[in-house]
């Protein structure tokens, strides 16, 4: 579903070249739930933006749902759902349901399918109480649920989430995690999630990839990840060791 082959993205910054992502290769198969970890500035968002076609890779190859994202961006958009935790994709001044209606048109979802999907999402994400509220008046937790629904209205094969639980309280986090697990298991949607909240990783991801300085530093199951550190280490300890490089043996 997602394939990166020696992909890289560099930026020219004041005459020097910064490699945000370098020589990155991995494959994610359909139906997987992958956590994508890395310290700030490691290249997580850059990777995600290459997957959506927002950024054109400067080296290597990227394929998502069989398409080259930067060349077939608008076609790919129908197969991929994207959520940015730090900014909304909804229309700020309009009621939530109007954003959904507009998305229905943009993605050319027929009315009956849209209705049944929206009803289902309204139920599972508990949106009924604020469907008619303008987005700017929603709480962060409500807005994030709205954003998730917006990303899934066209039933994408791949869901890419960039820090979807950032800034949320424990209850909102729990409901979003619960929802993501269901999307993955019931619809078989492939999910790639970046986060700094290791609780997301522990509770959701069967597979973890860890990127550092634009390289893949770890790729394996959650159990493999835990096994890189001495027994009884918490996931925080394990990840800290990997981030700071003290785990290399």
């Amino acid at each position, binding site marked *: 579903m997602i394939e990166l082959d020696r992909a890289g993205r560099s930026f020219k910054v004041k005459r020097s070249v910064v490699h945000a992502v370098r020589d990155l290769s991995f494959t994610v198969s359909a139906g997987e739930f992958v956590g994508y970890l890395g310290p700030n500035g490691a290249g997580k968002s850059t990777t995600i933006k290459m997957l*959506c076609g927002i950024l*054109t890779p400067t080296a290597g190859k990227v394929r998502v749902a069989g398409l080259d994202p930067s060349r077939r961006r*608008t076609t790919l958009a129908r197969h991929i759902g994207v959520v940015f935790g730090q900014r909304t994709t909804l229309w700020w001044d309009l009621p939530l349901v109007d954003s959904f209606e*507009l998305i229905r048109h943009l993605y050319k979802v027929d009315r009956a399918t849209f209705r049944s999907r929206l009803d289902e999402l309204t139920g599972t994400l508990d949106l009924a109480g604020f469907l008619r509220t303008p987005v700017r008046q929603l709480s962060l937790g409500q807005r994030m649920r709205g954003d998730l629904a917006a990303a899934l209205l066209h039933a994408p094969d791949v869901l890419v989430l960039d820090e979807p639980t950032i800034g949320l309280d424990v209850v909102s986090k729990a409901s979003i995690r619960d929802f993501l697990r269901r999307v993955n298991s019931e619809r078989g949607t492939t999910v790639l999630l970046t986060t700094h909240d290791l609780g997301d990783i522990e509770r959701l991801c069967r597979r973890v990839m860890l990127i550092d300085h634009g390289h893949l530093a770890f790729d394996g199951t959650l159990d493999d990840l835990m096994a890189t550190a001495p027994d009884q280490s918490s996931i925080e300890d394990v990840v800290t060791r990997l981030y700071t490089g003290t785990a290399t043996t």
Partner: protein
Amino acid sequence: MVRTYFLLLWTWTRAAAAYPASFVLMTVLGFVTAALDVAVILVIFANTTALAGFSREEVLLLYGAAGLSFTVCDTFVSNLDRISQHIKAGTLDTVLIRPVSAWIQLAADRFNATRVGRILQAALVLGYAISALGIDWRRAWMIPVMVLTGIVIFSALWTMAGAVQFLLTDAPEVVSAFTYGSHQLNQYPLSIYARDLVRGVTYVLPLAYVNWQPGLYVLGRDDPFGTPEFMRFLGPAAALVLALLAALAWRQGIRHYRSTGS
């Protein structure tokens, strides 16, 4: 494509209506500034009967034709020049994840329905000039061609202005010199300007084809600068070339987008 565009316009209009006081104020201001533009021309002719050899009605024809093309673009396309704000705020990312061309989405971005009044004003001026001059119907066919050519040229300029901002995110105002500046230039007969400037807008940046060259044909006049007759008909070709260049620049701009850290 067109349907999506109008749907976006409607969406932004409703979003703007969420702030009704500002909406009303902007509409009124739009009309006032447009009226002032015409007033300037009338003031000039209150003091003189001809401007660089052109009568009041002839100047109004040139003004109205360019004005109509320009206000249409200013209303429906000009939002492209706000792209640097999206680049800086990182909101361009959310535009690029949609299955609709970024150009369509950004042209419609924060569409301001209050500008529609200025299209009406330009159309009225053009209509008045046409009837007052009693244009020969054998030459009148050029008027819609001229307005369409102008729309394509101004749209291309705005597209380029948007594309350039992928490189110059810090200086979005620089590009306004080319969009709004071009319009200022076209408000009067080009014969009031220096020969070298007119050469520039004839052979380099094809602004002379917005209203000047086709306008000379409509008015049945020779070019005071002595360009040959066939150049009156080059407008559509020049517009097409400029549009192709703009499309190319836009594509390059999008491919060189760097996004923001998050």
